């Protein structure tokens, strides 16, 4: 059993979004596999490549059996040459294909930043819309078991800074499938960032093909006292915190933007108009990151609603340590969101 799975099973109890409901349920990982399968089925221009895509593990199970089904021309292993493979994906998109480039970790995308930042994000604008780049780059944030500084980064803050990229970060199985289908259908480069700790969580996932539109956040839990805008795995942590705080009489409204670019400003401002208090919970560093952008937005467009200074619950500004003791101190979670909420209500 992969080490990540062992730790996740111990530390991250399965979260069932539709507990008690008799509906078709898939895990986050199964939903991603179904989405890729259906994307390949629907459109012969779609192909996927990645390091270890045909391994026994099949990129955390998300590509299992797909090479057998679609052949080695549409599902193939990639060399450890991120810059050239993403560049190749871009070139193939120029020639009419719809590539999906899968990477185990966002950390590894740093090897391909030139192609992502200088080519993929700019081709459409630089050439006045003549050559769109329909490209999906998938990467999965690692966490725990001593993954340390180079196998645990999210780095979505870097990508949201660059105009011309769409940034997608699902937190549920339903959104993982729907947002992936939408990403493949989009005519622009999409950075699709998963979180390893979301993989075993499950929820309702329809068998049919459906797309979750970009730029539409969702209220994961309605509340009256504090708005929590949470990203990726922090959505789950925020829902757990909300449950706990409910008992103390504090009501959190948990928002999941689902896509960071485009970002659903309206859902944030509407919630702030009601609560006047804001926590931004992110799986990235605090300084200069997306959480800072959300707070800036709240200040610029929702200043009149704010009753207290917003609070960011983010990673401290240091590289991820390996030791499990330091990991525990490093990763914010339920307790930090609870503390932030208590502080805001004090």
């Amino acid at each position: 059993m992969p080490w990540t799975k062992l730790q996740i099973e111990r530390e991250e109890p399965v979260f069932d979004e539709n507990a008690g409901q008799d509906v078709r349920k898939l895990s986050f990982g199964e939903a991603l596999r179904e989405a890729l399968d259906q994307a390949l089925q629907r459109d012969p221009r779609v192909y996927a490549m990645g390091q270890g895509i045909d391994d026994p593990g099949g990129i955390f199970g998300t590509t299992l059996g797909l090479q057998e089904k679609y052949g080695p021309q549409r599902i193939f292993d990639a060399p450890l040459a991120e810059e050239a493979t993403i560049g190749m994906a871009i070139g193939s998109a120029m020639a009419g294909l719809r590539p999906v480039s899968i990477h185990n970790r966002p950390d590894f995308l740093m090897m391909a930043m030139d192609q992502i930042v200088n080519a993929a994000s700019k081709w459409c604008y630089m050439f006045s819309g003549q050559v769109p780049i329909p490209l999906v780059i998938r990467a999965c944030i690692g966490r725990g078991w001593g993954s340390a500084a180079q196998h645990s980064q999210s780095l979505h803050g870097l990508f949201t800074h660059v105009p011309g990229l769409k940034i997608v970060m699902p937190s549920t199985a339903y959104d993982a499938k729907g947002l992936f289908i939408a990403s493949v259908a989009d005519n622009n480069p999409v950075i699709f960032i998963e979180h390893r700790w979301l993989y075993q969580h499950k929820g309702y996932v329809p068998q049919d093909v459906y797309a979750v539109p970009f730029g539409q956040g969702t209220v994961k839990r309605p509340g009256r006292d504090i708005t929590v805008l949470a990203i990726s795995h922090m959505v789950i942590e925020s829902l757990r915190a909300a449950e706990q705080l409910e008992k103390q009489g504090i009501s959190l409204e948990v928002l999941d933007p689902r896509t960071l670019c485009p970002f659903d400003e309206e859902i944030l401002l509407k919630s702030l108009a009601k609560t006047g208090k804001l926590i931004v919970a992110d799986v990235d560093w605090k300084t200069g990151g997306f959480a800072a952008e959300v707070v800036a937005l709240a200040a610029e467009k929702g200043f009149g609603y704010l009753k207290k200074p917003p609070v960011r619950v983010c990673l401290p500004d240091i590289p991820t340590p390996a030791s499990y003791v330091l990991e525990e101190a490093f990763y914010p979670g339920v307790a930090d969101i609870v503390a932030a909420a208590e502080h805001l209500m004090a």
Partner: protein
Amino acid sequence: MICAMNENHQNEIGTEQLWDLYRVMARIRLVELKIEELYHLDDMKTPIHLSLGEEAVAAGVCAHLRLDDFVFSNHRSHAHYLAKGGDLKAMIAELYCKETGCAKGRGGSMHLIDTAVGHLGSSAIVGGSIPHAVGAALAFVMQNKTAVAVSFFGDAASEEGVFFESMSLAALKRLPVVFVCENNFYSVCSHISARQPNPDIAMRARAFDIPSVKVDGMDVGQVFMKAGDAIHHARQGRGPYLLECRAQRWRAHAGSGDPLREKYRKPEDLEPDWMRDPLSELEQVLRSRRGIGEQTIRDITGTLNAEIDEAFYAAQSGPLPRKEDLKKYLFA
């Protein structure tokens, strides 16, 4: 004048083909000279990278390409664009940053594009478009096409890691891509000896079992013949090919400066090729051995200059982009 054109190559090329090559090279030459003549007026508000001295490479390679073949190019892209059949008016308008430009004034001189003729946009990141050619070649295979992708890049791009990654990928997948390195020995003002431990760029393809050859890039006959072999090889499904075409960049890296006056090239260190002129050499061959008269040469020069003047006039008088369209085209 020196005429070092290889007779064996020349003799294999029909007069009509040589004449076509001449017209393409003369057109590039005259366009570049006109750009240079007017550049100091500062109406072309975009950095320019002239291909003067390097015309034979683009012309000799692109002569073998079909409309559905793709070329990928770099900051020094005027010659590639024109040789592939890119629209002249749209190119000049782009240099004037006009809405009528090939990228509607969003790209400038370093980002030319003409999708109608298989020019998918040039990149100003050195080495940046090499993997794009590999990707287009991958698409051609998946689409069961017999098209070929050509990547033009300079000697400095051969220092980038992505060059090696791209050759590796292309060889691994046996893709129909031809890598064309235009080795003009200079990256801005830095000589290749300051940048590369072994100046043999063609040799590097051997590590990937990619056939490669060094080509006299001042001899369009040789470029034409060697490129023909390379493109045929790729089109037959036999995998990638690397051409190292050695040529001379007569002007500054950017703008119209003179490397000798700027003193980073010294008369005593010049390669013998510096004194050669690929266009004059071809003209000499056409006149002395193929019966093309002086008047015919003058006529074509006149015709080309008229076309160029018209393109400049159209570009100068064309509309600028509208400020309210600033954010247009960010997403498709």
